[in-house]
């Protein structure tokens, strides 16, 4: 096997004096570590007290006891390197803040902002949006901290991928606890990081308990246990990752081990793991009575308090006097006292800013919007003409007819006619040429060209560093994109079926969508998650759903669903350029659908619906493939029944263009929604709600303009069945739309 586990506890720890002599350290540096450890300790003690006084509310997972891990590890990295933190993250945040503090004032300011965040004040690092579990200064090398155990590991992989892609020489420290090493995120991430060869160091803080359950072994007879191996380092071995085990109570040991790992990462651009054996003084949280561990065990560990260990070393090696050590302690206490006062006296966030920083605000020049309107209707006409030509032109083969028809469209409209899949490829290729920071990662996106051929040919043009085939690891694929996006590149992650997004959801929502808001608006996540959904290939319930209602339910996400090649290309290009996380959902039955689009470059602004067919009798709102069904139905309704439907393609589901829909209903008085997703709490009811609530300039709302109860057509409330007749029966189809519109208009 190509790995090694090095148990550094078995070796003698070098004397501090010796390290100073070697020039590896300075005495001031080590004394500053002691001061940081004291600051973290006093911070946590203070938080514990303030929780008891109900001045701090919410969760607080205290770091006291583990100070040597954060301080030693962060001492081993450089300014510009990146850390990923956890729900027990005050130590990481404290240590890296000190690292960036240039002077005493900056240092005090740092602790002030930490305490203010804990109290939920406007002056906190995240303006009171994150609190204890999401405390992070993302401007200074922190990826943020997550409340989902293991959830921060995939983003660290992505961050490391970004540093590698940008060739910055920076590394990523990913802190996580023993508990997270039993999650899928951990395993997917270790494997992906190992395969991708990214500069990442996994710092396992093995404090022996995941909440109350011991990782391995027990000190209380009745306790359970989480794993059957003592050392997590062995798990690294399974992924071909070199690992070390160190004494996490000794900051010097931690420093030296991490230092080596950081150098390994920088030189080899590879990951390794440092497992630190440590112990938390407090319980999992303040309400934890710690019945699962013995008093003897606690006593034994407390005798090895990392502050005591370092203080003793400094004194024994005569690097500091008692007075000096006492002065460090007192100074740390004073810093936390000042921080407490600062936080107590800080203002609360203003509730009117509640919705600030959910999104990066984006706008489009008026000419882009106007151009889209012009192109869109032109593309509809050209596509219609193309379809007629395909029926009327003569030729030996279909291909020949198609070529003739395409040439005619090019001559008459100045437009090309291509399939949706080719529009997607073109969009990605154009954006990758335009911006070297655009990369693609996902299952089978390379040689295979994507399960639905939407990345075909891109590997050949852009190489395997930009078109990255991954393992089947949806959580890691998604989290990797999030981390890479936070670190400044523009990843396109492909999830083969939207059904698999169920596995990605933690990463997509908690990190991708929420990070900006949780971290006080200081992060942005410019990623695209491309996937496809819908029925049409008889592949049953795990490969046929339409889950867009799940996604629009996530604040912080954009959700885009194209229906034509023109829309597919323009929207995907806009999605890639957006600074917000965009979920871009194609329809599996439409990749071959032909349509016209401009020859010159264009984007379609996100958040703008498109009136695919103007009409006066009834407003039909839909998106994705169902638009084609609606247009077919509208044609029949006009030809045979004299009913003039207006068909609106939302294109972007979130943010939704309620204005276009409401204005249409104002005209027609009747509203029907047609969606392929389930109805309950779904897109249709949501569209209806938006129309009903829509405020017009005259004081009326959309409700006032309704002349009939709105009708929602949606997928039947059944798992999509495999059998074709059942599959067809489970979704709206043109005949059902025709019948429903007739009924609606007759009412």
């Amino acid at each position, binding site marked *: 096997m190509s790995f090694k586990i090095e148990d550094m506890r078995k070796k003698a720890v070098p004397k501090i004096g010796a390290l100073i002599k070697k020039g590896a350290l300075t005495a001031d540096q080590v004394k500053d570590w002691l001061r940081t450890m004291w600051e973290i300790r006093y911070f946590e003690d203070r938080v514990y007290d303030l929780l008891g006084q109900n001045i701090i509310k919410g969760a607080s997972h205290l770091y006291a006891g583990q100070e040597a891990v954060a301080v030693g590890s962060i001492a081993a990295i450089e300014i510009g390197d990146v850390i990923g933190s956890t729900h027990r993250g005050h130590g990481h945040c404290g240590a890296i803040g000190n690292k960036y503090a240039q002077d005493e004032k900056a240092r005090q300011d740092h602790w002030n902002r930490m305490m203010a965040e804990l109290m939920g004040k406007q002056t906190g690092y995240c303006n009171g949006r994150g609190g204890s579990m999401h405390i992070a200064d993302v401007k200074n090398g922190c990826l943020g901290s997550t409340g989902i155990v293991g959830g921060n590991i995939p983003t660290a992989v992505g961050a490391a991928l970004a540093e590698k892609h940008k060739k910055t020489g920076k590394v990523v420290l990913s802190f996580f606890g023993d508990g997270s090493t039993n999650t899928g995120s951990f395993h997917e991430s270790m494997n992906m990081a190992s395969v991708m060869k990214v500069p990442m160091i996994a710092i396992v803080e093995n404090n022996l308990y995941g909440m109350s359950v011991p990782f391995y072994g027990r000190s209380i007879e009745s306790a359970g246990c989480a794993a059957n191996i003592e050392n997590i380092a062995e798990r690294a071995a399974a992924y071909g990752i070199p690992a070390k085990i160190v004494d996490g109570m000794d900051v010097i040991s931690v420093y030296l081990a991490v230092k080596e790992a950081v150098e390994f990462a920088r030189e080899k651009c590879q990951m390794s793991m440092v497992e630190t054996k440590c112990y938390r003084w407090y319980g999992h949280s303040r309400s934890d009575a710690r019945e699962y561990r013995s008093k003897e065990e606690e006593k034994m560990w407390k005798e090895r308090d990392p502050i005591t260990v370092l203080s003793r070393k400094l004194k024994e090696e005569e690097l500091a006097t008692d007075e000096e050590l006492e002065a460090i302690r007192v100074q740390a206490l004073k810093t936390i006292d000042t921080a407490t006062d600062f936080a107590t006296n800080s203002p609360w966030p203003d509730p009117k800013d509640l919705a600030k920083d959910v999104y990066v605000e984006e706008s489009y020049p008026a000419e882009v919007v106007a151009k889209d309107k012009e192109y869109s209707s032109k593309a509809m006409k050209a596509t219609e003409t193309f379809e007629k030509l395909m029926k009327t032109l003569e030729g030996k083969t279909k291909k020949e007819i198609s070529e003739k028809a395409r040439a005619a469209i090019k001559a008459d409209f100045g437009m090309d006619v291509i399939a949706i899949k080719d529009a997607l490829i073109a969009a990605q290729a154009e954006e990758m040429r335009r911006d070297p920071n655009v990369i693609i990662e996902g299952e089978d996106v390379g040689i295979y060209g994507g399960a639905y051929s939407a990345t075909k040919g891109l590997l050949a043009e852009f190489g395997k560093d930009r078109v990255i085939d991954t393992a089947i690891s949806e959580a890691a694929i998604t989290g990797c994109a999030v981390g890479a996006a936070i670190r400044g590149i523009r990843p396109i992650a492909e999830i083969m079926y939207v059904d698999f997004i169920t596995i990605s959801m933690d990463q997509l929502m908690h990190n991708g969508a929420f990070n900006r808001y949780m971290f006080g608006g200081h992060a942005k996540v410019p990623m695209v998650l491309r996937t496809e959904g819908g029925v049409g290939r008889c592949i049953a319930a795990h490969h046929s759903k339409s889950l867009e209602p799940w996604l629009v339910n996530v604040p912080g996400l954009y959700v885009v669903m194209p229906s034509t090649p023109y829309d597919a290309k323009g929207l995907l290009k806009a999605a890639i350029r957006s600074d917000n996380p965009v979920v871009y959902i194609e329809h599996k039955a439409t990749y071959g659908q032909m349509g016209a689009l401009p020859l010159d470059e264009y984007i379609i602004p996100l958040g703008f619906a498109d009136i695919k067919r103007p009409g006066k009798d009834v407003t039909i709102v839909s998106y994705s493939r169902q638009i084609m069904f609606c247009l077919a139905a509208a044609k029949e309704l006009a030809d045979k029944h004299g009913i003039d439907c207006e068909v609106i393609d939302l294109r972007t589901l979130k943010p939704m263009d309620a204005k276009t829909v409401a204005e249409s209903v104002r005209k027609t*008085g009747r509203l029907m929604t047609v969606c392929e997703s389930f109805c309950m709490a779904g897109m249709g009811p949501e569209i209806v709600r938006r129309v009903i609530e829509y405020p017009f300039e005259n004081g*009326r709302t959309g*409700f*006032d*303009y*309704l*002349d*009939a*109860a709105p009708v929602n057509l949606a997928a039947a409330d059944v798992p999509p069945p495999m059998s074709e007749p059942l599959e067809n029966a489970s979704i709206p189809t043109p005949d059902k739309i025709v019948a429903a519109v007739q009924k609606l208009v007759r*009412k």
Partner: protein
Amino acid sequence: MAKDIRMPKLGQTMEEGTVVTCLVKIGDAVKKGDILFEVETDKATMEVDSPAEGFVKAIIAEVGQTLPVHAPILVLGDKDEVVPQSFIDSLLGGAAAAASTAPVAAPTPAPVQPATQPVAASAPTVSGSAVSLAGVKVLRLQKLGQTMEEGTVVNVLIKTGDSIKKGDVIFEIETDKATMEMDSPNDGVVRAILVESGQTLPVHSPMVILTDKADTPLPQSAIDAIRSSGAVAEAPKATATTPVPVPATPAPAPQVKAAESVPLTTGKVFATPRAKMVAQDLGIDIRRVPLAPGAARLTEADIRKAGQQPTTATVPPQPTLSLGQKVTINRLQRIVGEKMLQSKREIPCFYLNIRADMTELVKLREKLNKNASVKISFNDFIIKAVAMGLRHYPIMTGQLAGDHIQLADSIDIGLAISTPQGLVAPIVRDAFNKSLVEIATYCQGLIDRARSEKLTLDDLSGGCITVSNLGGFGIDSFIPIVVPGQCSILGIGRISDTCVPMDGNILIRKLMNLNLSVDHKVANGADAAQFLDFVKKTLEHAGNFA
């Protein structure tokens, strides 16, 4: 020999009866005098006994159904006789014609029934609300109370496919009075429910289609036909060859008229938000907008249609007159003058006076108007009473026509209205077949139209009588002039508290003078007196309007 039994006239004022219970079943042997049905009339619940002996061959009347006097209700025959379907069909389809030749069960005076005027035109002919032929039955909204005109479905307690028994509660219906349970008059399998919760529909509208068996063929076209058969158009006649009741003839005239007029809307008016908004913008009272047939709620189109006949009155300022001034005669006043002169010249009148005790009616009116959306005026009660009187004394509708007296085709009553332009007396058409609320709604419309000069020629032509009320001006009694073309005119004075000796006491009662001017060419004193007395008595018994 098959023999049809018809709804008897069980009291002088009885016009129709509602079948409460049916006490026989097909095949039963009945003797003369056996009780066949219990029927509720405007006065009481009474028994209908068999006028003949025989075996029950067919039961035409259904429980819950309201039928006019002389409508066929049952067929008797000999023990083994097979009554041909055509016989029943002829009874149902030709109910009107049959009625005129049917033995007159009621004592005098017999209603005058010109051969050209089918009964159906003045009284709704109702045939089986659940005709049990070819295994298909249509359940219609029952009249759950005397004044019930329509009901709102509150709760649908059955679903398609349910097997239900006679007496099962199938709907909860909210009427103008209360929420009531409607139970099924038949056994059967629910094949189609034609209504939904929240829907308001007129009495006798089709609600449910039952079949005998779950697999009885029932094509969609049949359901559609029943659904579109609509409300009172009823008379859905089923034959052996057409299993589905389809109206054999166009809806009787009264119903068509009722639909043209403004249908009553009491309680909640269901209208779309857009309809309400447009109504608000156009200043239209949605309670006065008729619902399209079969529609669940008013839509924008209904409002816009109604908006083409504005209901809002614009009153131009009254010109002030000064002494010595020459007052120009407007066209209207000239016509009034000419007509009145013509009347005095051509109509030899006699005059009758009577006083009606309005005490009960005053109370009833207060009660009815308390929460009603349509307020009922005294004139509305009077018009209704006059209509009932004319129905009993049709001679009072007559006009001398050369060598004979021609009676009117329908009971049309004029209402004298003073407008800024002058006096007009537009006609309330077919007042007998209008409910009180319908009359009230219609009169309000007439008044609004009169004041805004929107009356049509049709509004003003014809009529058998005019009601002129000067009570509002404090007049106790006055003698009006008959409008040429009509037989009489009724002048109404104010209602005043009067000491009345009654049962040895002196009571304070609310009395009102009625003066009737009558064309002696048409009617004699005895006719006119009986008519006026009938009107008086009708007004005095508030129960006639409850």
